[in-house]
């Protein structure tokens, strides 16, 4: 009976004491905010790293103030060494992909809003939920430790291709303990993500409130649900890959290291491994990871968009089915990262066709979003601007995929800035735009205060124009053949490109600086913002039926009953042009 009574306490009384309330909290809302805070720290770190890298590319011999404090070896006298550039690049990629793009749109918002949107009091397994955040936090700490150890962060990139990442410190700086910490951190991160995904799936399947059929769930909930299915299978593959990599490094096994390698004049004591095995395992995770970042953003953007254009999407079902097919296809395309890696050239074609096929659901989604704008009443807010900006970015980042899906063009474009531009736009900027849209939209609910709208709009204009200024030129550079992951441009054909690089660097500084507007807005509004009503955007889903911020058990011990699907807009409702999901009134079409 103890179990049951403990359960009851958990259901009806909030925990006491700072530690249980804010640190080791079981409340999905606190955990969601913790994920958000972690992503916020990681994104500003990642951005600072990109500033340092962009600075070094343009002024390779200039001192960077304070950099020597970060690493005496990496920046003697404050001037960055080429290898330290690679260290920072690795950390930038790892922080952004894992701790920002996986955490913010999926874990942070998903944790906070998925249970509320389906009418649940909490996640299915609150203890697992708490564990999944704190595991992720430990992963973050382990990764950041690489900055302070003498070896420094690894230089093998976020993809950690073996054998560079596997043979140890013979291969270069950061490849001793730095790379070990990287592997351990990612392995721990996998565990955290698996726990989180398990929780999301079980919660969606079992904790929906009365009347909340699957098709009545908001698109955002669908997106988190589909993403958790993808993430469950993707991280389940990355985890064993990391285990094998760590064993190769510390236990002398040869999973990824073939015989006869001479690194730094030393014949390596390994035999029989396969470097391509790492690439296969990594990209089997790596490509779905792109969708782990972008699908939640698609869901959030759809959710925000619908409330902002005051009409349902032309078809929510089509969006949901498109997301499902993208998720499904994402497991059949990993090989397109390996067209020129020595994989069987016939299999290149087998990976090319499903990759091109992904264009179809992606186009369908874009057309549905665009078509839904027709004849709508678009309300321009920072949230809706970022949602519209997302569509633009998704298109821009998506069309460059036409090129990279084709092995013949990949011969020219592989490992150039074209690829960097492509994935930064589609999985970096677009996904972050989804996070911004979600933040401006849900901040009132999460904190009980409104964000400053003027500041938010300035943030949007600068970020929107700025990111285009940064990443569009990346594509041009790639067409010329500008190789990525170069810490300096010494080749004859690269030197003339420096002016374009300078333009990009300046754009990166301005765009980065604009993010402080967001940070200021976030902090200022949290404490001094205007008080938020229950439903500031006149939105229909369940999170807008509870107080801002929601109480500990979300619905005050009651179980909401749902009568409609989540997006009843553009109708004659008792309160205006919308009908709440839990309102029993019949929906009367507007005309």
């Amino acid at each position, binding site marked *: 009976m103890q179990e049951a009574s403990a359960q009851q306490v958990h259901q009806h009384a909030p925990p006491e004491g700072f530690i249980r309330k804010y640190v080791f909290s079981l409340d999905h809302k606190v955990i969601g905010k913790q994920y958000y805070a972690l992503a916020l720290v990681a994104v500003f770190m990642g951005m600072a790293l990109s500033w340092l890298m962009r600075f070094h590319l343009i002024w390779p011999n200039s001192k960077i103030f304070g950099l020597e404090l970060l690493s005496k070896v990496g920046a003697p006298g404050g001037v960055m060494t080429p*290898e330290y550039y*690679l260290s920072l690049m690795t950390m930038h990629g790892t922080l952004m992909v894992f701790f920002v793009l996986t955490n913010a749109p999926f874990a942070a918002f998903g944790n906070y809003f998925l249970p509320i949107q389906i009418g649940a009091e909490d996640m299915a397994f609150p203890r697992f939920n708490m564990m999944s955040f704190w595991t992720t936090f430990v992963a973050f700490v382990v990764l950041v430790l690489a900055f302070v150890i003498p070896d420094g962060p690894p*230089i093998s990139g976020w993809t950690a291709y073996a054998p*560079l990442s596997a043979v140890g410190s013979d*291969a*270069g700086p950061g490849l001793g303990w730095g790379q070990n910490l990287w592997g351990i951190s990612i392995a721990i991160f996998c565990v955290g993500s698996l726990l989180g995904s398990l929780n999301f799936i079980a919660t969606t399947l079992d904790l929906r409130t009365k009347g909340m059929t699957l098709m009545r769930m908001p698109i955002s909930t669908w997106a988190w649900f589909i993403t958790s299915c993808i993430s469950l299978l993707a991280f389940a593959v990355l985890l064993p890959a990391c285990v094998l990599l760590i064993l190769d490094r510390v236990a002398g096994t040869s999973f990824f*290291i*073939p015989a*006869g*390698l*001479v*690194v*730094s*004049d030393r014949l390596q004591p390994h035999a029989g491994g*396969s470097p*391509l095995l790492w690439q296969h395992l990594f990209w089997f995770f790596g490509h779905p990871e792109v969708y782990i970042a972008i699908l939640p953003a698609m869901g959030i953007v759809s959710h925000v968009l619908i409330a902002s254009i005051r*009409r349902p999407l*032309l*078809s929510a079902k*089509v969006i949901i089915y498109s997301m499902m097919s993208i998720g499904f296809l994402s497991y059949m395309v990993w090989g397109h990262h390996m067209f*020129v890696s*020595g994989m069987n*050239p016939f299999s*290149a074609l087998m990976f090319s066709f499903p990759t*091109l096929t992904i264009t*179809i659901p992606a186009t*369908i989604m*874009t057309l*549905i979003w665009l*078509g839904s*704008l*027709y*004849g709508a*009443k*678009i309300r*321009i807010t920072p949230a809706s601007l970022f949602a*519209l900006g997302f569509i*633009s970015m998704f*298109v821009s980042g998506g*069309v460059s995929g*036409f*090129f990279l*899906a*084709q092995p*013949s*063009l*990949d*011969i*020219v474009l*592989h*490992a150039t800035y074209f690829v960097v531009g492509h994935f930064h736009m589609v999985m970096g900027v677009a996904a972050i735009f989804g996070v911004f849209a979600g933040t401006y939209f849900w901040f009132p609910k999460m904190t009980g205060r409104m964000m400053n709208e003027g500041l938010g*709009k300035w943030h949007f204009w600068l970020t929107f124009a700025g990111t285009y200024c940064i990443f*569009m030129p990346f594509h041009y550079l790639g067409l*010329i*053949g500008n*190789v*990525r992951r170069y810490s300096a441009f010494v*080749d*004859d*054909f690269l030197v003339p490109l420096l002016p374009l690089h300078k333009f990009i660097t300046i754009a990166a500084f301005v765009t980065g600086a604009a993010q402080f507007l967001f940070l200021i807005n976030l902090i200022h509004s949290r404490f001094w913002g205007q008080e938020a009503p229950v439903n500031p955007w006149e939105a229909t889903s369940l999170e807008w039926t509870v107080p801002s911020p929601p109480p500990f058990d979300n619905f005050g011990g009651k179980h909401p009953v749902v009568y409609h699907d989540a997006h009843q807009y553009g109708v004659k409702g008792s309160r205006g042009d919308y009908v709440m999901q839990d309102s029993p009134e019949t929906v009367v079409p507007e005309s």
Partner: protein
Amino acid sequence: MGKLFAVILTIIALVSAVPIVMHTWWMPQDISAHGHAIDEQMSETMAEAGFSFLAAQLLLAFFVWKFSNRKDDGKIRTFPGGAKGLVAAAFILVGTEMLALGVLGQKAWATVYFTPPAANALQVQAQAGQFAFYFRYPGADGKFGALHPDKIDEGNQNYFGLDPANDVEARDDIVTGELAVPVNREVHLMMHAKDVGHSFYVRELRIQQDFVPGLDLAVHFTAVKTGRYEIVCTQLCGLGHYNMKAYLNVMTQEDFDQWMKQKASEQ
């Protein structure tokens, strides 16, 4: 505000397209026998991608211009044809577009990878190591000596780990730091990685291929224009990655024979 968004987006879309249309920054000239297929595929894809990009961005701008902050208190209207029309359009238009790209692109890919090298192709072995390329020609006997990783000794310029003392075939092998090839003759390049992964990329040659440790890979190509072109490494290989390069020297047959003779005497 919506109108401002529309204006900014339109400007971004149009300005982005200008360098593409003007070929301000574009692929360098093609010096390979197979490259025109790739270049055509690139133009084809660029046309389709460019059209999709402009159409979507301008449509987005137009709709936001027209339907944001409407004062007319008008009714919500639905896009003619609704979701069904759009889905059908996406399937038909994009589906055929992608199928066409996929099928056409296959041809360009096939010319590089599905044709075997000619029997009389010039045999060259390329070795990539941190952070230099070396090339090896089989010499007069037409045979490469075996590799012995334990014999690699850069101080003595034994970059490949040859064993001329015991291995007759290795004695006349010619090792160089640049890749010299005769114009209009097929080259069969066998790729060997000494330590970690690297890549062989010559922009003008439209060839990029990874060196994978433990894997015997090969590419073949024919250069049709003489000149010196940069070979760069495109697979992250360590701290000197940015500086890892060599030159491809495409010469006339006479120059090449001359060069070969001279190199043979230097060994």
